[in-house]
């Protein structure tokens, strides 16, 4: 049975397939605006009628493409909205395949969000990985290809964990492949396998290194898309299946702090933001681990807000990269005179992620911390608050300071090129900035979409305002007092990707130095000790074959040939002689028989 139900992803996929034929900018630009807008409209239509749709019977499997419920509604909404903003930001990009990859990537995300079983989830999960890798490859730098392959390999491995997990679950449960809450109180092997598959996409340490590697290298537009979809789709999938899984609480807290530490050391602005994705997603992972209604609301709200402010931050730093060709702090500085609007927009993103009052992060992040306090997990609540100081330290202070203020490290060429980006990029940043503020000041815009409406939360209390302002203002004091310690250094930081990046080299070294040496040595020994006896034995058997085996065989042959020769003499080749000899023999035989 196939219910007719227009999947929002279908609009994006059809649009993506038609896009390469839209070479004329007069046609292509409106098309680039219409397709995401139609997708967003379809999401709103779909969200208006919760239920299960798009159930397809395929080879005895019932595949569910359209599960619209309280959790998928909010994620579907923000993903399709971000697709509109990201496409506007990339409107100037001439390569149609970059838009195509981005749209298919978003289609994968929406497909994963609205799916109802693990088979469809896996299909869209892989679609996301295999489309988003092109957003790295299209940067076309020497290292882009390598980084893209690393990204693809890591995500393929994650996909295989997910696949193994749900196949095991299918057999263990007697055929259940529905995508729903797992029994996290009694985890089994398949729970952990599915968990690893999901947390790898959420970039939870130790499976996180792909994120700064890939997002720091993606194209200017590509990173705006990538920063929104992969990790937040994973968070959605975790909220759907792993809510209340205790182990996620320490993992999320470690994640929140880990990203902050590496952000201090980072010299590349976009990689720094990537480290802060890990940190912010850490809050969401903790929220999933706590698993209460308030915590899941906080996770959904923070994912919603994060997609917008992180997209805005990547748009801001991406604009600097697009205009100047630079993204490292040691090659930038003092740009407020040249790119003032980009500074304003990036600052709004920075204040949002730092959870300043009136900005989006203030009404979302605090919900997760409040859930930790409410559940009396004090250590997690205090450590997440500590991490929030680190967030403001880097994203709210370090990024703007070292790009737009601080020491001017720009070369003459960089300074000449620097100016606010084209109109479409400014409009996209303007929309994202507006939404960051709207979420912060008009609570119903986001809160009315939260999964558990009965779990109420009020962020604007005097205590919460006092607490937040004290933490943020005194973090700023610490930043300016310790400014000399934070001077960017033109270095990279070794992380856990060392194991597979250097590990590959180590494998080659072991292969060359150990295995190849041993192989050569064995070869030489074999030449001396193995070949000579072998040749002697071979010669003996050759002689034996010739004179022994062949001698016997040839002797028999020679005997047969000799007898044949004698018999041949009796044959004259004339039929009358043959009859004559035959008749004589017969007659002699008869006489002998009669007279005997």
């Amino acid at each position: 049975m196939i219910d007719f139900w227009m999947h929002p992803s279908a609009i994006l996929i059809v649009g993506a397939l038609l896009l390469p034929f839209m070479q004329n900018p007069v046609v292509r630009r409106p098309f680039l605006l219409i397709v995401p807008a139609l997708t967003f409209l379809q999401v709103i239509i779909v969200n208006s009628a919760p239920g299960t749709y798009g159930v397809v019977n395929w080879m005895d499997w019932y595949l569910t493409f359209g599960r619209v419920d309280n959790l998928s509604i909010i994620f579907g909404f923000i993903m399709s909205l971000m697709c509109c903003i990201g496409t506007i930001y990339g409107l100037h990009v001439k390569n149609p395949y970059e838009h195509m990859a981005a749209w298919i990537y978003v289609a994968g995300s929406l497909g994963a969000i609205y799916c109802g079983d693990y088979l469809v989830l896996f299909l869209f999960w892989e679609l996301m990985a295999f489309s988003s890798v092109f957003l790295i490859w299209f940067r076309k730098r020497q290292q882009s290809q390598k980084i893209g392959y690393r990204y693809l390999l890591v995500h393929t491995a994650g996909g295989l964990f997910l696949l193994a997990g749900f196949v095991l679950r299918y057999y263990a449960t007697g055929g259940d492949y529905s995508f729903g809450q797992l029994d996290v109180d009694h985890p089994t092997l398949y729970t952990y396998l599915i968990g690893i598959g999901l947390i790898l996409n959420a970039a939870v340490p130790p499976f996180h290194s792909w994120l700064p590697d890939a997002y720091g290298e993606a194209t200017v537009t590509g990173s705006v898309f990538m920063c929104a979809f992969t990790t937040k789709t994973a968070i959605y999938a975790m909220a759907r299946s792993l809510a209340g899984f205790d182990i996620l609480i320490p993992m999320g807290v470690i994640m929140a702090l880990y990203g902050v530490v590496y952000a201090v050391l980072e010299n590349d602005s976009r990689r720094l933001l990537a480290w802060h994705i890990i940190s912010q997603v850490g809050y969401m992972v903790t929220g999933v681990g706590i698993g209460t209604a308030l915590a899941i609301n906080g996770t959904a709200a923070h994912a919603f807000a994060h997609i917008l402010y992180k997209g805005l931050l990547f748009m801001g730093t991406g604009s600097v990269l697009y205009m100047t060709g630079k993204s490292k702090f040691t090659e930038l500085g003092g740009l407020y005179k040249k790119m003032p609007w980009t500074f304003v927009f990036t600052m709004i993103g920075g204040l949002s992620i730092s959870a300043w009052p009136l900005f989006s992060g203030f009404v979302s992040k605090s919900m997760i911390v409040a859930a930790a306090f409410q559940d009396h997990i004090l250590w997690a609540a205090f450590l997440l608050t500590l991490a929030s100081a680190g967030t403001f330290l880097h994203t709210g202070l370090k990024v703007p300071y070292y790009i737009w203020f601080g020491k001017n490290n720009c070369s003459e060429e960089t300074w000449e090129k620097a100016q606010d980006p084209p109109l479409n990029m400014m409009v996209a940043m303007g929309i994202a900035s507006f939404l960051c503020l709207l979420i912060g000041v008009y609570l119903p815009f986001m809160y009315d979409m939260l999964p558990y409406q009965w779990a109420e939360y009020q962020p604007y209390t005097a205590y919460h305002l006092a607490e937040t302002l004290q933490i943020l203002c005194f973090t700023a004091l610490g930043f300016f007092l310790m400014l000399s310690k934070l001077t960017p250094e033109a270095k990279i930081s070794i992380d856990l990707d060392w194991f597979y990046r250097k590990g590959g080299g180590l494998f080659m070294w072991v292969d060359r130095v150990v295995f190849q040496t041993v192989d050569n040595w064995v070869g030489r020994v074999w030449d001396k000790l193995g070949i000579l006896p072998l040749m002697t034995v071979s010669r003996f058997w050759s002689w034996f074959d010739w004179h022994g085996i062949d001698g016997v065989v040839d002797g028999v042959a020679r005997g047969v040939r000799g007898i044949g020769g004698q018999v041949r003499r009796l044959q004259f080749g004339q039929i009358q002689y043959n009859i004559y000899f035959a008749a004589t023999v017969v007659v002699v035989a008869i006489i002998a028989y009669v007279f005997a």
Partner: protein
Amino acid sequence: MILVQLIDYLRERLKYVNRICYVILAGIAVWGSRVAYTSHHAHTAMEKWPFFWSVFGFLACVIIIVFSKWYGHSGVMTREDYYDD
């Protein structure tokens, strides 16, 4: 642009800006402590200590910077072409 002019204006009077910021900081610390003391929203008793969240924010910043730099300089930070070998 007005924004650029405003920034230039403030940078030229950085000493006064700093003083105003310190006054604001002190005001927030005092007000925050008073709110915490009278509020029933505090989750733990220590949050009612005077200047608790101010000290927390400042120490969090210092700890993050000092620890991260120590960690980075203990061998984690390396040259940019490290993986190109």
